[in-house]
C-alpha cells in the first residue's frame, strides 16, 4: 500500500493553546483509518487543517504525493479529498437531489446551465437508490430526520467520486439502526476503492470497521497500529484514563 495522505509536523495554536502540536500522520491508500483520542486532543482541529478550513502554523501536507499545504477546501475537494461534518451540514432549503447536485462539482462554464440537468439527476438517482432515499428526493433537506441528513451528507460527498473521505463522527447522535446503515455504506464504498479517515467516539464501531487506528493526545500522535493493539498500549490507556 502507498500513502494517500501524509502529514509531517503539523502545528496549530489558538492563542497560547497548542491544539495540534508537531503531529505527523499517514493514511494508506485503501485503508479505513480511525483517528481517536480524548476530548480536546486535537482531532477536529487536525481535520480542519487537512481539509484546508484552517491554515496550519507549520508542517507539510501531501495528498496523492503532491504538496497541498495551504490549499483551500474547494481545491482539495476537486483533487478528491472531502469530508463530512460532525453536525451533518446539509443545505436545508435545497431539495435532497439539489444537495447532491451542488456537491457534484461543476465548472465555470456550467454555471449558466439549469440547476439540475438530466445527467445530474441520473447521477444523483443512482446514489439515492444506493442510500435508499429515492422517496425523499424532492423534499427539502430540512424535512429529513437527523440520521437521514447524516446519510445525505455522506452521499453528497460521494458525488464527486473522492479518493479520500474524512468522516467526522459519523455515528454521533444517530440511533443504532442508522449506525448499522452507515457502517454498511462505508464498507460498500471502501470496497469500491475509497479510502476513509474517521474520527469516532464509538469504540465498538471503530474496532469493527477500522484498521489502522491512530491515537491523538495533546495534539500529537501517540500510537498507530491495528485495533487489536490499541487497548493494550500503555500510552493510550494513560491518555484516556489520565495519570
Amino acid at each position, binding site marked *: 500500500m502507498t500513502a494517500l495522505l501524509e502529514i509531517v509536523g503539523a502545528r496549530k495554536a489558538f492563542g497560547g493553546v497548542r491544539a495540534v502540536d508537531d503531529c505527523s500522520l499517514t493514511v494508506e491508500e485503501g485503508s479505513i483509518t480511525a483517528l481517536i483520542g480524548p476530548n480536546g486532543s486535537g482531532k477536529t482541529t487536525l481535520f480542519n487543517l487537512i481539509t484546508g478550513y484552517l491554515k496550519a502554523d507549520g508542517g507539510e501536507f501531501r495528498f496523492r504525493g503532491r504538496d497541498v499545504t495551504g490549499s483551500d477546501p474547494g481545491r482539495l475537494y476537486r483533487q478528491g479529498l472531502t469530508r463530512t461534518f460532525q453536525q*451533518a451540514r446539509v*443545505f436545508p432549503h*435545497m431539495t435532497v437531489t439539489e444537495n447532491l447536485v451542488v456537491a457534484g462539482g461543476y465548472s465555470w462554464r456550467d*454555471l449558466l446551465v439549469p*440547476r439540475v440537468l438530466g445527467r445530474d439527476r441520473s447521477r444523483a438517482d443512482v446514489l439515492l437508490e444506493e442510500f435508499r*432515499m429515492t422517496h425523499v428526493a424532492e423534499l427539502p433537506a430540512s424535512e429529513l430526520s437527523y440520521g437521514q441528513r447524516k446519510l445525505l451528507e455522506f452521499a453528497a460527498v460521494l458525488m464527486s467520486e473522492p479518493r479520500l473521505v474524512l468522516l467526522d463522527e459519523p455515528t454521533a447522535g444517530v440511533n443504532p*439502526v442508522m449506525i448499522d446503515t452507515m457502517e454498511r455504506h462505508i464498507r460498500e464504498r471502501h470496497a469500491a476503492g475509497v479510502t476513509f479517515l474517521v474520527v469516532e467516539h464509538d469504540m465498538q464501531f471503530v474496532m469493527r470497521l477500522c484498521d489502522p487506528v491512530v491515537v491523538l493526545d495533546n495534539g500529537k500522535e501517540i500510537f498507530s497500529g491495528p485495533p487489536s493493539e490499541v487497548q493494550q498500549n500503555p500510552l493510550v490507556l494513560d491518555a484516556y484514563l489520565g495519570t
Partner: protein
Amino acid sequence: MSIRSLVRGGVFVAALMALPLLGFEHWVLNLMIFTLMYAAMSSAWNLVGGFAGYPSLGHAAFFGLGAYFVGLWFQHHAVVTGYEPFLVLPIAGLIAAVVGFPIAWIAMRTRADVFAIVTITLLFVAQTLAFNLDSLTGGAQGLAMPTPPFELARFEWPFYYAMLWILLASMGITYLSMRSKVGLSLDAIRADEDKALGVGVHVQGVKVLSFSISVALVAMAGGVWAYYETFTYPQFAFDPIITIGMVLMCFLGGRGTLWGPVIGAFILVPGQQYLAYRLGGSQFYLIAYAGVFLLIMLLMPRGILPTIADRVRRRRAIAASSEGPPPADASPPTAGPGSNVPVPSGGAA
C-alpha cells in the same frame, strides 16, 4: 409552475409597458418612475443580499457612481435629442461592475456582518471622494445635468421606460440565475458557506460575479435618476438612505425571491412618498416609520411573500390531510430510522 409564472410575468410586463399610454397624470408617472427605480435596485440588491446572503450597505456608492458618470459625461458631450444619457447607461454599468469587482473580492473575504460594515464604509469613501475631487465632480457645489428637452406631455416617458428596462433586466437576471447553477451555488453559499466551499462550489467567484452584476444595475438606475433630477450632489447621490431603501424593500417583500423586492418597492415607495406628501409634517413620522419597520422585522422576518407562501402551503396541507391521504412524495419522511433524534436548527450551530 412554469406556465403560471410565465403568465404572471407577461401580465406584469404588459401592464407596466402600457401604463404611460393610458393617459395618467404626470404625478402618477413621476411616482411610478421612483417606484420602478427602487424595484429595480432592490431586485438587484437581492442578488447579493438576498441570494448570496451578503447584506451590502454600500450599494448607494454605485448609485452615485452612475449618477456622477452620466453627469460628468455630459459636461463634455452635448445632449441633442435628449436620449443620449440613456445610451451611455451601459457604460455606467460596465464601469460599476469593473470597480465593484476588486471591491467585492476584498470585502467578500470577510464574514457577512463585517462585509456590511466594509460596504457602508465604502459608501462614505465614495461620498468623500465626490466632495473632495471637486475639480472633477464639482464637489460641494454639486453637478448640474443637462436639461431634458422632452415635450411636456410625454416628459416622463423616457425615464419611465428606462427604469422599467432596468427592472426587467434585473428580474430577468434574477430569474435566470435562480434557474441555473448560479442560483444553486448562491443558495448553498447563503445556507452554509463553509460547507459550500468544502463541496467544491466556486464560492468566491460566484459571490463576486453576483456583486458586480448587482452594482452595475444599480449604477444604471443612478444614471437615470440623476438625469431626471437634473442635478446631483454628493450627499444626495451617495446617500445611505438609498441603500436602506433597497434593503428594506427586499426584506419586506421577501429576500431571495423573484417577486419579493418588487412587491416591497411597490408597497413602500408609493407609501413613503404619499405619507411624506400628505402627513410628512407630523413630528411622529419617523417614529411611525421605525415602528412599522420593527413590526415587519419581528412579525414577518422572512418577508411578505415567503410568509404568505408558507401559510398557503400549510392551509393546503391541512386541507389535503383532512380530505384523504397525502400524496406519496409530500408525506413527511418516516421510513428512515433515527427520526427521533432532535434536529438541530440551521446549518451552523
